């Protein structure tokens, strides 16, 4: 499509997808403090423009080899991702760093999800800014986070990938540390140090690969690029730990409950909705793609840890007494399913992981929005004080019930496909280990249902508690506007998973071809 150095319309679109939120954040920084509302509106407009441009990246995908519906076998000699659009500019030759962006079926759904959730969060902030105010700065920080996440999903240069991976860290820290709950400082610091620990290992891993291969081009590197076995294993270990921290994979998950619980609603939505996906996306595209030999050797370990995450996450959830903390811990279990899918290294598993990623982003985003709405009204997140929500706020309780049922993986809703097929993929792998893992993961699925139903019983049913009786049941239009797209997507993805699977099928096939 794109000649090296030449920039076509798709390239401009890619640059705009990353550039628009950056431009928005810069613009917001120049707004005077008294124009707070105008600044928030401007930020939301930039987020909306990003979503439009990001969604338009699919244009032109159909006539491409790695396209929308046309699944053709990978041409010999051209392994790796075959992006729909590419932008490839020289940046720092001394570090093998090129400004190389590209979008394909693996990254596209995540790009749209990121842009959508950021827009919804900005829209939500138009309506209400969490204490201590200064919504302008919060919107600007969300846009910077968006730059980092989108850049991570779009980067086709390993060093550039690392750069964007790092961009997210400090703005997220600030979002938690300034607008968070009572224990925000500690939670934010824990988040920053944990994730930096992950990303410095990512740096070493990325540079191990690039110095050994002499290039940082992800397209050329996918499939191992003839790297020696030892290098691949070392690189995979470093990269896997780095992404495991971000995803997060048990036992490196301990930053997550604190960060998600303490973050403001919009922070939790972005954190759970898309930030975690940087880890799983990186695992598929970078760790598995670049060091397949290492991935094969470490698959069993990864699978065991993933199943441990599912079981531990579910069991811990059963004992949680705080709404947001419960939802946060549920992410550990759900991401466990995604990682199990990746660990199988099969087409079914990777497809399950990709749709599970998107579904988790949509459902958990919705859950955190709802949890924020409940906490804003009842001024408590304690499950013991929240009984009887159905009595006083039936619509809110209904939506919470819908999201919880979607999260437990009811067939027909978005959560089902990823989790069911992760188990199927593990089962298909065969052998005593993977069969056991599939069985245990299925048990974990049952436990997921158990804790979410417990959540519903505690929160929506039973006699109304004093805190719930006094809350205002009316839902603001802004809230409904923020939730409606997520409810809709949960239904649509549940009924027509082909929307995501159709896009991911070809690149997953190509990836498996390349790493075989």
């Amino acid at each position, binding site marked *: 499509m794109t000649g090296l150095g030449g920039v076509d319309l798709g390239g401009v679109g890619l640059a705009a997808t990353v550039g628009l939120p950056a431009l928005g954040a810069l613009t917001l920084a120049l707004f005077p403090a008294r124009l707070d509302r105008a600044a928030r509106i401007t930020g939301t407009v930039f987020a909306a423009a990003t979503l439009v441009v990001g969604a338009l990246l699919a244009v032109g995908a159909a006539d491409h080899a790695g396209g929308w519906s046309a699944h053709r076998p990978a041409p010999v000699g051209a392994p790796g991702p075959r992006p729909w659009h590419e932008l490839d500019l020289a*940046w*720092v*030759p*001394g*570090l093998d760093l090129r400004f190389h962006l590209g979008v394909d079926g693996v990254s596209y759904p995540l790009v749209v999800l990121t842009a959508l959730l950021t827009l919804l969060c900005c829209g939500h902030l138009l309506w209400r800014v969490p204490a*201590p105010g200064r919504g302008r700065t919060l919107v600007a920080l969300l846009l910077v986070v968006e730059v*980092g996440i989108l850049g991570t999903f779009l980067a086709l240069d390993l*060093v550039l990938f*690392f*750069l964007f991976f*790092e*961009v997210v*860290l*400090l703005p997220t*820290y*600030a979002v938690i*540390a*300034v607008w968070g709950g009572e224990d925000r*400082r500690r939670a934010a*610091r824990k988040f*920053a*140090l944990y994730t*930096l*620990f992950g990303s*410095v*290992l990512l*740096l*070493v891993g990325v*540079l*191990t690969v*690039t*110095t050994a291969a002499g290039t940082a081009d992800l397209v050329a590197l996918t499939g191992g690029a003839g790297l020696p076995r030892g290098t691949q294993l*070392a690189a995979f270990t470093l990269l896997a730990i780095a992404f495991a921290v971000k995803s997060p994979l048990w036992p490196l998950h301990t930053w997550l409950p604190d960060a998600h619980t303490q973050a403001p609603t919009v922070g939790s939505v972005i954190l759970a909705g898309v930030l975690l996906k940087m880890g799983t996306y990186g695992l598929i595209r970078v760790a598995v793609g670049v060091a397949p030999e290492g991935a094969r050797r470490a698959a069993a370990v990864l699978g065991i840890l993933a199943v441990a995450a599912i079981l531990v996450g579910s069991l811990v959830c059963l004992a949680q007494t705080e709404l947001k903390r419960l939802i946060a811990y549920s992410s550990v279990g759900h991401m466990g399913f995604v990682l199990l899918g990746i660990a199988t290294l099969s087409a079914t598993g990777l497809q399950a992981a990709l749709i599970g990623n998107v579904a988790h982003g949509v459902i958990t985003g919705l859950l955190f929005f709802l949890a924020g709405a409940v906490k804003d009204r009842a001024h408590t997140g304690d499950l013991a004080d929240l009984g009887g929500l159905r009595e006083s706020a039936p619509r809110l309780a209904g939506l919470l019930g819908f999201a919880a049922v979607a999260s437990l993986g009811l067939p027909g809703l978005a959560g089902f496909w990823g989790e069911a097929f992760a188990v199927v993929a593990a089962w298909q792998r065969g052998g005593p280990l993977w069969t056991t893992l599939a069985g245990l993961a299925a048990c974990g699925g049952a436990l997921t249902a158990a804790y979410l139903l417990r959540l519903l019983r505690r929160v929506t049913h039973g006699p109304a508690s004093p805190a719930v009786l006094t809350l205002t049941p009316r839902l603001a239009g802004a809230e409904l506007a923020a939730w409606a797209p997520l409810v809709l997507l949960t239904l649509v993805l549940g009924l027509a998973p082909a929307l995501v699977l159709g896009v991911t099928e070809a690149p997953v096939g190509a990836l498996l071809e390349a790493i075989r």
Partner: protein
Amino acid sequence: MVGDVSQTVDNVALLPAYLAAGTAVLVLLADLAVARRGATLGAFVAGAAATGLAAVLVGLDGVRRTFCVGTACSYQATGRAALVGCLFALLSLGVLALSVPLLRAGEVPAGEYCFLLACSMTGGVVLGAAGDLITLVVALETLTLPLYVLVGLRRRGVAGAEAALTFFVVSVVATAVTLLGAALLYAATGVVHLSALGTALAAGPSPRESPLAVVGAVLVVCGLAFKVAAVPFHAWAPATYDGAPVPVAAYLSTASKLGGVVALLAVVGAGPGAAAASAPPAGSATPTPLPAEVTGPVLAVVAVLTMTVGNLVALRQRRMVRLLAWSSVAQAGYVLAPLGALALPAGRSPEALDTAVAAAVAYTIFFVLLELAAFAAVVALRPVAADGGEITDYQGAARRRPWIGAALVLALVGLAGLPPGLAGLFAKVVVVRSLLAGDAGWLAVVVALNAVVGLAYYVRVAAVLYAPEPAASRAGDEAAASTTPPEAAGPAARPDGSGSGPAAVRPAWAVVTALAVATVLAIVVGFAPQLVLSVSAM
């Protein structure tokens, strides 16, 4: 020895050194004859600018050598020398700009201050071109000697005198150690020229069997490690930085540290212009002046200790300048880390050595830029002529002064090596990359993990800057007098009419300019790091 007595001197090569020394004399004369602060400062600015410019022009002209004995030369105006000279001139200018409030408040005598700074700059300019151990040590001492006085030059307070004494004693010991090492090397080989030293050592008995040479090499490296404040030769730095006026602390942690790094690189890596100097037959690499088998392990150990100890101790600091001091100790560890790759055979190949030296130079450039910006922001946020103060004194500072606060956060985040401080991020990338290229993956992991520890304290300071202002500071300037140290509450601390906080004295424009220039440069090299990489690979 062999050369004729009446050798010709290439005065063009020496031009930057002449100009730097001339600046010192000019400043002294201006102070005597005109006796006005403006004239003194003007003379310094003109002289330093001319020095920097001359260094660049001479550097562009190609390699020039002078004071040669055979093929070995004592003064080599190479590209690296031009870079070092230019950096020293710029850093001196920056530090002078930071010192303007101090001079204006009459805290230090302007003439003496500028003279000493210019002398120190002269040492730095010569250091970059030094081609033998003696010139190296003399240049380094010329760089350091004026600093003993500068540290203690303040008219009030004993902290400065204490700091100066600490610095003086430690530094003299370090110089003695370096000289002893140089003497032993001379005894073992009979040469002092860096370009001849490697060959002489390689030609003689293997270094392992020549204890004299090994001890000499280790002593030289250790002596120079004092100057970069590398652990375990670092103890002087925090006390000295904290006792010195903040601009002098800035000079110590940027220019003085740069001097140490340049000296270390000259003896450990290929000395300036070594490749062309002794001109060995093509194919055989020029040996490093000191045997890499000896210096490599020493440097690897020192680098690991330096970054780890520096970062861990910085975690517990309560005072701003001490925190910056410990952080700059840790940063010295990152600078030395690429040279630690010399510990392994794979790191000693000529290409790996070049990469390591270039990485160390590049990291140093990124570092001095960010460090100068950090110190400039500290000066701008503090009352005139105050010391660095406690970290809690900065609470809410970024809310009172958004731009200066943002610049300080950018510098700190850059030192931590994270976006948006892209300059610092690329600096870390360069170091880790060079280590991996030299097969020293373990050291790369140590560097990476240290970056995590580093973030913990940088982010603490950044959080304090953006924390809500303490209630006391809104009460007005009465509170200001109690929170500022006694020596600052002199004539300098004039209250500001706006009454918006304790440090609400408008910073001098020179300080703001220095801060702005350093910040803009940091942002520019953050987006175009290739500039620094190309320059440092010369």
